[in-house]
C-alpha cells in the first residue's frame, strides 16, 4: 500500500532515514486536501443541482447566520492546520539534528560542480561516498552564487550560500547510487549541475577508504586542517577570515597596512599569529609554533594555496 502510493505519486525510492516519515506526512496532508475537496465540492455540486434555477423552483429562506457555526468552522480548520504544522515542525527538528558521531564532509559548490572534502583530506568531485547506516553531516558553502544541494531519494535539500556555512544531516539507509541535483537556479549550467551519492555498505566504505589514492600534499593539508580544527573558525566569517581563496590576495591588517597572503605570510600566521592581524578580526588564533612539523606546515600552506577558487 505504502509502496503503491509512493509510486502513484511519482515519489522516488527512499534511501535516507528521513524519507519514510516525510512520505507518510505527505500522504496525511494529501488525504486532508482530498477529504476537504470531497466534502466541499460534494456540497457545491449538491447545492448547484438542488437549487438550480428551473421552472417551479420555489425558494426557501436561508437559515439565519450562526456565528457559533462560523467561528467553530474556522477553529476546526485552524486546529487541523496547526496539527499539520506541529507534525511538520517536529519532523524537521529531528531531520536537522545530526546523529551521534556524524561523519562530517565539507561540500563546496561552484558553477557548476560539487566538491567534497572528507575528514581525512580525501577530495572528490561530483561524487559523494557515504557508509550506509552512519549519520553524516554535510557542511555546505559556495564559491560563487547560491546553489542548493538536493537528493530526491533522501528527500533532503539545503542551500549552499557563499560566505555562509549551512549544514545538512542525514543517514543513508539503502545502498545504491542516487542523483544529486542543484535546486537553486545558478546560471546556464544549472540543470547540468548533477552529482551522485554512492551509499556503500559499511564494509565496502571502509575498504574504499583504505584503497583510494594516498593523499598528496594538499590532501594531507586538508586532513590536518580538519583534525586541528582550523576550519571550525576559518569558515565562519565572524570568527576568522576564510581560508578558501585567500592565497595570493592582499590582506588588510589591523594596523592599516596590507600584506599579501603568500607562503611566508601564511607560515608566519601559523607560527606567530599576533604579528600580523587581519583587520576586523580579534587576535584569537593560537600559535602552532612547535606543534606542527615542517611537513605539516607545508601541507597546510599547500592546502590553502590549492583551495584557491
Amino acid at each position, binding site marked *: 500500500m505504502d509502496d503503491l502510493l509512493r509510486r502513484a505519486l511519482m515519489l522516488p525510492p527512499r534511501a535516507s532515514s528521513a524519507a519514510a516519515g516525510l512520505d507518510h506526512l505527505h500522504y496525511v496532508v494529501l488525504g486532508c486536501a482530498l477529504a476537504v475537496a470531497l466534502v466541499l465540492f460534494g456540497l457545491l455540486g449538491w447545492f448547484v443541482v438542488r437549487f438550480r434555477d428551473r421552472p417551479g423552483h420555489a425558494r426557501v429562506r436561508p437559515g439565519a447566520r450562526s456565528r457559533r457555526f462560523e467561528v467553530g468552522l474556522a477553529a476546526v480548520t485552524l486546529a487541523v492546520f496547526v496539527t499539520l504544522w506541529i507534525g511538520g515542525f517536529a519532523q524537521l527538528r529531528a531531520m536537522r539534528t545530526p546523529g551521534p558521531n556524524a561523519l562530517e564532509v565539507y561540500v563546496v559548490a561552484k558553477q557548476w560542480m560539487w566538491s567534497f572534502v572528507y575528514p581525512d583530506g580525501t577530495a572528490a568531485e561530483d561524487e559523494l561516498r557515504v557508509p550506509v547506516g552512519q549519520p553524516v553531516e554535510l557542511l555546505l558553502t559556495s564559491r560563487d552564487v547560491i546553489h542548493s544541494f538536493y537528493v530526491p531519494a533522501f528527500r533532503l535539500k539545503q542551500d549552499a550560500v557563499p560566505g555562509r556555512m549551512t549544514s545538512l544531516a542525514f543517514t543513508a539507509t539503502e545502498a545504491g547510487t542516487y542523483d544529486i541535483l542543484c535546486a537553486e537556479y545558478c546560471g546556464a549550467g544549472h540543470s547540468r549541475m548533477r552529482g551522485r551519492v554512492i551509499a556503500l555498505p559499511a564494509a565496502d566504505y571502509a575498504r574504499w577508504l583504505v584503497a583510494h589514492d594516498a593523499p598528496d600534499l594538499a590532501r594531507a593539508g586538508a586532513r590536518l586542517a580538519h583534525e586541528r580544527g582550523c576550519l571550525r573558525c576559518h569558515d565562519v*566569517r*565572524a570568527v576568522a577570515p576564510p581560508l578558501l581563496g585567500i592565497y595570493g590576495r592582499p590582506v*588588510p591588517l589591523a594596523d*592599516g597596512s*596590507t600584506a599579501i597572503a603568500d607562503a611566508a605570510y601564511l607560515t608566519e600566521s601559523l607560527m606567530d599569529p599576533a604579528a600580523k592581524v587581519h*583587520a*576586523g*578580526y580579534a587576535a584569537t588564533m593560537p600559535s602552532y609554533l612547535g606543534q606542527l612539523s615542517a611537513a605539516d606546515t607545508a601541507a597546510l600552506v599547500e592546502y590553502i594555496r590549492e583551495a584557491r577558487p
Partner: protein
Amino acid sequence: MISGRAHALRITVWLVVASEGLLFAGLFALYAGYRAEYPRGFAEGVGLAVGWLGGTNTLVLLTSSFAMAAAIQAGPRAARRWLVGVLGLGGVFLGLKGAEWAIHIGDGLVPGAHYAGPHTPGTALFVTLYYAMTGLHALHLVAGLAMVAWARRREDPAVTECVGIYWHFVDLVWVVLWPLFYLLS
C-alpha cells in the same frame, strides 16, 4: 465638519508617510543586519564621520521643523514668511550635506569598486549604506522643499498642514539617521 478635500489630503499624506516609512525601514533593516554582523567595522565607519557637520545639520532641521509648526499655527500671511524660513533651512541642510559628501569623496570614501577607505570588514558596507541612506533622505528633502514651495503658493491651511506632516516625517528620519551614522561608535 472638515471638507472632503482636506480629509482626502490628510489621508493621502499619512499614506505617503507610511509608504516612505517602509522604504526607509528596508534600509534600516539592512543597517541593523550588517551592524550586528560587523560591529567593529561599523564603529570604525562612524569614526570617519564629520561630527560637527552632522550635528549642525540636525540643529538646522529641528529648527526648520519648528518653523513648520509655526507656519501651521500662524495665519495664511504669516505662514508664507515662516515657510520661507523652512525653505532656507532646508537649503542650508542640503548645502552642508553636499559639502560633507565632497569631503568624504575627497578622502576616497566612495562606494563600490573605487573604495579607498579602511579595510576593516564591514566599513565598506557602512560607507555604501551611508551614501544610500543619507542620499535617499536628501532626495526626500528635495521633494519636501518642492512641496513647501507649493504650499506657500497655495496659501491653503489644509495643504500647509499636510506638507507639514511630510516635513516632520523627513525630519524624523534624519533624527534616526544621525545617531546611526554620527554618534554610535
